[in-house]
């Protein structure tokens, strides 16, 4: 069973890659746009520090570390999950979700697998480079910290997935509102900066309720030796958030099946 799903996923990746090669110019252009539009906020950080100011208690490279992690997480989510929103919207508007529902695989799995999109490869590479540079300037990193980082990073990716799912689920209701991503992206902003610049109320929200702080801040904090119990406690809300996303999406598909689009 698992094998079957792995095979399907692998096929989908092959298709995505060959499409990218066929439409080379578009692929390169999309990659260029993706990376440039997503590194603007670290640019602002550089400009701030370049003007002689700083986020209190944080060196330039420490802040860049947070933003590099955020970028890598964004890239991973773009590659693996973000196609889901557009595919769902497109199917709902055209009334063609039936085509997916009659396939002998799980609907959600199929939509996620078939929308793998490597246009964010450049962003991932850029993020990794930024990450390496920042990391090399922040002091010793132990194996334990790396382990903690991996766990928290994955939790952050789960949050990204949860957001994708919730966005896709709401697109069933708010049909054709192409500005949906803007709403969720604006909340993600909170995860790009050191949490101590925000009042307790906000950082509690961004840690426990919509845990966007896990996307950039907490995994980076781990590599700075500052991951405490709270950070790991937040893993729970992350998983809960993701589970909520899956349930919501499935629920909307169920409703769709009842109404026929």
């Amino acid at each position, binding site marked *: 069973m698992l094998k079957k799903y792995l095979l399907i996923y692998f096929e989908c990746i092959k298709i995505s890659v060959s499409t990218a090669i066929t439409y080379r*110019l578009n692929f390169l*252009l999309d990659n*260029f*746009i993706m990376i*440039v*539009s997503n590194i*603007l906020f670290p*640019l*602002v950080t550089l*400009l*701030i520090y*370049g*003007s*002689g*100011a*700083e*986020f*209190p208690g944080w060196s330039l490279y420490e802040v860049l570390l947070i933003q590099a992690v955020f970028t890598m997480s964004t890239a991973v989510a773009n590659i693996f999950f973000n196609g889901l929103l557009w595919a769902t919207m497109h199917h709902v508007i055209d009334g063609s979700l039936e085509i997916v529902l009659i396939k002998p695989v799980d609907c959600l799995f199929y939509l996620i697998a078939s929308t793998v999109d490597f246009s964010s490869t450049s962003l991932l590479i850029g993020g990794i480079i930024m990450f390496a540079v920042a990391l090399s300037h922040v002091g010793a990193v132990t194996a334990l910290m790396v382990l903690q980082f991996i766990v928290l990073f994955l939790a952050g990716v789960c949050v990204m997935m949860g957001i994708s799912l919730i966005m896709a689920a709401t697109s069933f209701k*708010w049909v054709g*509102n*192409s*500005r*949906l991503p*803007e*709403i969720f992206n*604006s*909340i993600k*902003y*909170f995860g790009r*900066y*050191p949490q*101590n*610049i*925000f*009042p307790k109320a*906000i950082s509690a929200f961004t840690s426990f309720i919509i845990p966007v702080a896990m996307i950039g801040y907490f995994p980076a904090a781990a590599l700075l030796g500052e991951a405490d119990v709270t950070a790991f406690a937040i893993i729970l809300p992350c998983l809960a958030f993701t589970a909520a996303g899956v349930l919501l999406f499935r629920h909307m598909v169920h409703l769709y099946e009842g109404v026929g689009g």
Partner: protein
Amino acid sequence: MMNFVLKKLKVIWAVALVTYKEWSAYRTHAMVSIFVGPVYFIVQYFIWSAVYSGKTSLNGLELSEMLKYFGVTTLIGYLTMDFADWNLQMLVRTGKFLTFAIRPIHHRFFALSQKIGHRVLGLLFEFLPCLFIFTFVFRVNLRPANYGWAVISVILAFFMNLYMNYLIGMTAFWLVQASGVRSVYLLLQSVFSGGLVPLVFFPEALQKVLLFLPFQYVSYVPAMVFIGRYTLGNISLPIPQIVGLQALAVLITALVNELVYRLSMKRFTGVGA
């Protein structure tokens, strides 16, 4: 003469009305800004409050002015943004531009009328609610140093954006895949118009280059007119002068626009679409 003006006004009214109706079918579209705008501002608020701790001024701006800057650029955006480039490109690509070539209307004038219709919606459903939130809930002081110059500057920015976007849209007459050009332009614009961070934060050498580029006139200049002081590349200008410069920039862009329009129409009627 009077007849001419009246006729033009009638066209603006008709097209604007149509565009307004077209988009008010998508009111929720505009209302997203009521959420996104304030959230974005909140994030900026905490970033700059933290960055300014222990400092009164950064690159010539105080904290209150920074906050005013972000509030103002967001609000001005609701009044001056448009999709003229996208609309024109789509018309040319689908061949529908032909339906304008066979009617007695200058398409750019049509685009202007469309923008007026859209922005009236923007005024009602984006600008006013966000203005309310910024002023009364966040208690940010957004009052311009001088109302007169501020209004003029915003109107100039309205036209500047239209002419620039329309220029980009016209590349569709010349290039098959014009979307690449558009994307590059939008990226440059988003950074160098001052929407990301006040232009004085960039290295001075770059600032001197930006003095000669049209991007600043869409966001940075009107925002600084609100704050009451203009500096770029170590050059400071009094407000009347910078607004005058803005007007000149709009004029030049309009002329370039008309030139390219005529060349584009010549090409369109020579090659077909």
